[in-house]
């Protein structure tokens, strides 16, 4: 009995040691990047499929799976005249930063993928940067929104790091412009989640851009439930609008409590509100609400790419496409566009192609990659009335 346990332990520790080594090792031929064989292009997926942020990760996996199967059914990617199918290698980073780093190392060193799509969250995506950069393989996150994600410490752009979504600053500035130009708000209060970079980033960008007067700026932290005191003081200051920078859990409650105490002014926010749970929590109070989002089902009906995506998504998964699936779907097609324009699936060339991406027809609109590897795309401002999307504005 004891002997077998001991043997098992040895086997386990050997396996564990190998795994750790695999996690730590990096590519040796650092300057060249990975090359693909004649028949397939390997794309790696480093995604949060379990753990705290698995909700985002699984939505993105759906988008990626859909894009890959569509491309393969149509014959594959056209690499310099002959078609190559995509081989997708899916790995779970368990919503852990260290696992994300080792998953990235496995994908680039062992599997020799041309591109790593993912992870979904900024922290996990940042953790993969050293490994993909050393191997000269592109790391493309569908949804890492932190402005610093694509930048090195010295402010220069990370050569192999891209994202398929807009960064937080862009949402904050767009919301501020919208409050100025469309809502004509003069006095605005900001209520930000200071326990996340997302909340503080949005609030800072909004405050910087807004031309009217920011009469009050208050903070809350994730998990708070009572916002009555702060909202009462906003009400006393006679604000024209409130900008709530945070995720749906608290934003939903803020909206509900504000409406209950008779605050009728528009409440603005970011894509943290773009979740069905937001309306569930806010209930009938979700009226006169505006939020910025890269993609909305109603705004997308005029865009043929989005229409095709939404139909295909509904047919495959039997539900309306979430925003995160749309971004991930775009990410795969961006890779395809980069390979086809460069006529090569060499990983270094793909990075060049992505950096030069211009007017790429995505689900979220026409996308152009700027110098800092942030896609410039139209941002949509959605208006909610009684919990339903009533109107969508495009903000420039």
């Amino acid at each position, binding site marked *: 009995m004891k002997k077998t346990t001991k043997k098992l332990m040895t086997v386990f520790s050997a396996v564990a040691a190998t795994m750790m080594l695999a996690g730590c090792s990096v590519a040796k031929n650092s300057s060249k990047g990975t090359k693909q064989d004649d028949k397939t292009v390997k794309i790696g997926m480093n995604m949060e499929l379990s753990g*705290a942020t698995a*909700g985002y990760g699984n939505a993105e996996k759906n988008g990626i799976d859909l894009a890959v199967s569509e491309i393969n059914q149509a014959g594959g990617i056209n690499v310099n005249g002959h078609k190559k199918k995509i081989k997708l290698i899916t790995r779970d980073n368990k919503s852990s930063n260290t696992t994300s780093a080792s998953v990235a190392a496995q994908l680039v060193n062992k599997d020799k993928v041309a591109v790593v799509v993912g992870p979904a969250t900024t922290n996990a995506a940042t953790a993969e940067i050293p490994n993909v950069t050393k191997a000269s393989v592109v790391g493309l996150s569908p949804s890492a929104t932190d402005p610093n994600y694509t930048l090195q410490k010295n402010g220069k752009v990370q050569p192999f790091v891209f994202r398929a979504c807009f960064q937080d600053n862009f949402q904050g500035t767009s919301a501020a412009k919208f409050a100025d130009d469309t809502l004509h708000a003069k006095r605005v209060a900001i209520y930000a989640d*200071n326990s996340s970079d997302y909340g503080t980033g949005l609030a800072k960008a909004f405050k910087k851009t807004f031309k009217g007067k920011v009469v*009050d700026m*208050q*903070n*809350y*932290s994730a*998990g*708070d*439930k*009572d916002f*009555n*005191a*702060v909202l*009462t*003081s906003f*009400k*006393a200051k006679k604000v024209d609008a409130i900008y709530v920078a945070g995720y749906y*859990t608290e934003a*939903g*409650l803020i909206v*509900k*409590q504000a409406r*209950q*105490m*008779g605050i009728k002014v528009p409440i603005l926010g970011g894509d943290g509100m773009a979740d069905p*749970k937001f309306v*569930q*929590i806010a*209930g009938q109070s979700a009226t006169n609400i505006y939020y910025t989002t890269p993609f909305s089902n109603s705004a997308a009906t005029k865009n043929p790419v989005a229409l095709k995506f939404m139909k295909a998504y509904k047919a495959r998964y039997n539900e309306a496409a979430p925003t995160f699936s749309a971004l991930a779907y775009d990410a795969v097609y961006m890779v395809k566009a980069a390979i086809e324009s460069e006529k090569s699936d060499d990983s270094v060339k793909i990075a060049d192609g992505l950096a030069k991406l211009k007017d790429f027809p995505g689900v979220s609109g026409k996308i152009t990659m700027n110098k800092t590897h942030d896609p410039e795309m139209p941002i949509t401002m959605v208006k909610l009335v009684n919990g339903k999307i009533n109107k969508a504005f495009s903000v420039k």
Partner: protein
Amino acid sequence: MQTVLQQVINALSLGAVYALLALGYTMVYGIIKLINFAHGDIYMLGAFWAYYVINFWHLNFIGALLSSMVIGALSGVVIEYFAYRPLRNSPRIAVLITAIGVSFLLENGMSYLFGANPRSFPQVIKQFNFNIGGVLISNIQILILATALILMVLLQIIIQKTKMGRAMRAVSVDPEAAELVGVDVNHTISFTFALGSALAGAAGVLIGMYYNSIDPLMGMTPGIKAFVAAVLGGIGSIPGASVGGFLIGILETFFQSIGLSAYKDAVVYLVLIIILLFLPSGIFGKNTREKV
């Protein structure tokens, strides 16, 4: 002036819930000198139970409140029986650590079973506002205050006027002597847990109604704040816990209303430190020396 009054209303509604929770801490501490850190999670269980019975059995508010109090009481007794009673004669730190363990078990167990996502609480009572000279009071705020006050008065009657209450007071003074004169100590302790946990269950329902959002981790912060309230009022003292709860509610609201919302939690913990440094027995606490 309107704004000030409005903030008073906000403070009292928040304070009522802290007070209900603080009563549970104080009673359990009073009787077996244990800080029951799982108390905030019983509040969460109460809220989830009410969510369940309202959605699936279509109970009304009173039914949900009463059944949540029963569930709260049951879970309090069960926790005491399995987690604390075996450690009755162990060092106090062992029980304290067990209490923290039970708290984690409840939080993560519920997250595992029902998901960590917040869910919206069914609105059994339609909310409307009374407008009194520009100050808005919602029917739910009145309900919270009224329920809290009724429960506090009931509790006081049970402790002062009933046989069980007398037994509780006896055990809290000296368990061994109480046993000598014929008090069933285990029974009394179970009863105390039942009573305190029933109040936590009620608080859970009230909060569910008030904020419309419940999740498995909802007991963490209010639990700790209620504990601070109990210490502020003098842990072990029933009126102290009620007053402490309201004071914490007022303090938190005040700091938010003057624009220091980022520090509202910090202030509560600062109060704990100050109380422990300068007035360790709290506002209503008796200054007793402990025999070593």
